[in-house]
């Protein structure tokens, strides 16, 4: 396999295709890895999805994978190259979380999710761009410059996993890992016309994930098909002795849930999610997706989530409070940027003032305020109580339905720069996604159409905690009955 077209053709393959092609001997891991590296060389100058690539290591690992395969190694991801969001620690590969404060930081240990991919035989192509410390919805908050949307270079790819989503949409990788604290896997997947899966809180280890909101963060796959998302989740899921917030439950074989048959599946439509402010084309696409589910034999059930409107304010109080505590570790002493303060407190102030970007400072400030004496009860405690009410809404809803359907985001990808000066407007783009993190639910975004500017629209399916099989089954049946997945960005 050496022809130019054949090489380019390899980059259209997803994870399952790569696995089958490698197993069938149709191409080697070196062919495959070279194809994706060439594709990155060709297009990444235009979209800036990667912060850094690791071509020499990747090709060496690919050659090793080919040798192992010849000796009978059958690991599920053997020789398949993937991209990793730069908030996940990778031993020996610089990891910055999109921040100046971690510039040059080379982790001495590896995130469990990445280690599991490696153990399954996967190869790392490089680290993808992210909003600084995953704080943002557009990837414009990266200290290393924004990522652009492969469908339209004037648009954001979404965020914070915008680098991973753009890389996968632009065929620079068959799939990538992202992280989702308030929608950061699902929303960029929607903006880039691909699939993004946020597992239930506790499904995937957070060990080695640079902490943002510890009660909300989850690692999830970003792929071009539901089957690929299921396969990657099978590999990264499971209890981890190094993360006490992983649930001690067996991860099922998620791929087996993808039967295409969803007759009788109860799909809940929350009335509160179809209100003013949704871009009309998004609402129209989601409404026709509901009809499609009905025609596949699903039962459409109107439901109510009375506290839906409170999810976003609660999220912003909880996540910033947790962030302010988590980011206290950046003190310029053990790792990262270090200023030259004369006293130890000057050293902290100057290091943090110089190392963090504006959005990170804003969130640390908001969280510190919400946790500070005199405001704790009115903001942080109150938010935690309303969080309980939001969970109870979902408990009630999931006693009536199997999955909940909504738009992933109220709009398609917005313009670069459109919302950077208006933090509140940026926050509002997360309106349909944050509640899943607050309640520990699983959620998936799948493509469901395009707007008049040819920008992708995403459909969100939410499931109860540890109900990934249901949302994957529903997403797969829908995906296979439509042709949205066949459209590709002209890059």
């Amino acid at each position: 396999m050496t022809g130019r077209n054949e090489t380019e053709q390899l980059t259209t393959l997803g994870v399952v295709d790569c696995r089958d092609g490698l197993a069938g001997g149709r191409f080697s891991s070196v062919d495959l890895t070279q194809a994706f590296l060439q594709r990155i060389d060709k297009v990444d100058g235009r979209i800036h999805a990667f912060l850094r690539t690791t071509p020499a290591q990747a090709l060496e690992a690919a050659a090793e994978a080919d040798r192992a395969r010849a000796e009978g190694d059958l690991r599920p991801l053997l020789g398949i190259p993937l991209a990793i969001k730069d908030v996940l620690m990778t031993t020996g590969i610089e990891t910055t979380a999109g921040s100046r404060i971690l510039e040059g930081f080379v982790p001495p240990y590896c995130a469990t999710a990445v280690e599991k991919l490696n153990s399954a035989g996967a190869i790392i192509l490089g680290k993808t761009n992210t909003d600084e410390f995953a704080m943002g919805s557009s990837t414009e908050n990266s200290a290393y410059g924004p990522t652009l949307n492969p469908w339209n270079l004037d648009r954001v790819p979404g965020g914070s996993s915008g680098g991973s989503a753009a890389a996968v949409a632009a065929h620079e990788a068959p799939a990538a890992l992202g992280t989702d604290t308030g929608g950061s896997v699902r929303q960029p997947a929607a903006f880039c016309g691909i699939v993004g899966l946020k597992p239930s809180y506790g499904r995937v280890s957070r060990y080695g994930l640079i902490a943002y909101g510890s009660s909300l963060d989850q690692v999830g796959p970003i792929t071009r098909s539901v089957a690929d998302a299921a396969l990657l989740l099978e590999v990264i899921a499971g209890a981890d002795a190094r993360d006490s917030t992983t649930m001690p439950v067996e991860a099922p074989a998620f791929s087996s849930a993808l039967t295409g048959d969803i007759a009788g599946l109860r799909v809940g439509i929350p009335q509160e999610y179809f209100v003013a402010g949704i871009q009309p084309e998004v609402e129209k696409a989601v409404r026709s997706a509901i009809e499609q589910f009905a025609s596949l034999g699903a039962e459409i059930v109107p439901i109510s989530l009375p506290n839906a409107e409170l999810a976003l304010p609660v999220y912003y109080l909880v996540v910033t409070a947790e962030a302010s505590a988590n980011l206290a570790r950046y003190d310029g002493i053990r790792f990262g940027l270090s200023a030259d303060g004369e006293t130890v407190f000057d050293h902290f102030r100057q290091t943090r003032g110089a190392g963090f970007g504006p959005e990170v400072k804003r969130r640390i400030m908001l969280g510190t305020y919400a946790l500070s004496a005199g405001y704790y009860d009115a903001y942080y405690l109150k938010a935690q109580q309303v969080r309980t009410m939001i969970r109870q809404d979902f408990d009630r809803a999931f006693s009536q339905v199997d999955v909940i359907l909504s738009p992933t985001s109220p709009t398609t990808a917005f313009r670069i720069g459109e919302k950077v000066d208006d933090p509140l407007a940026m926050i509002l783009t997360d309106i349909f996604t944050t509640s899943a993190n607050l309640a520990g639910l699983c959620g998936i975004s799948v493509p469901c159409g395009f707007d008049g500017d040819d920008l992708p629209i995403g459909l969100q399916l939410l499931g109860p905690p540890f109900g990934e099989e249901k949302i994957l089954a529903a997403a797969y049946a829908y995906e296979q009955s439509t042709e949205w997945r066949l459209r590709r960005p002209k890059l």
Partner: protein
Amino acid sequence: MNLTKDEVAHVAELAKLQLTDTELEEFAGQLGQILTYAQQVQSVDTSAVPPTPQVLPLTNVLATDEARGSLSNEQAVVNAPDSDDGYFRVVAVFDDSGA
């Protein structure tokens, strides 16, 4: 609601964040705007509602009592801006004036 510049400076000191004058002014407006939005939660009656600090039905998760490997001393200080003989070096926390 708006925060005063002094309030913003106080919070910045709690967070050990050095902010420029421009940042102090910008944040006074922006934080005020976001807090006004967040104040929605205060109108909710939560008198009988317990807080949710985390969502998992797990308590007292204990590790098995067995020795495991860890980072070597060399690895632990490898990213330190300033280290000496396997230790992190910091500026003196106490002065030596004897006061």
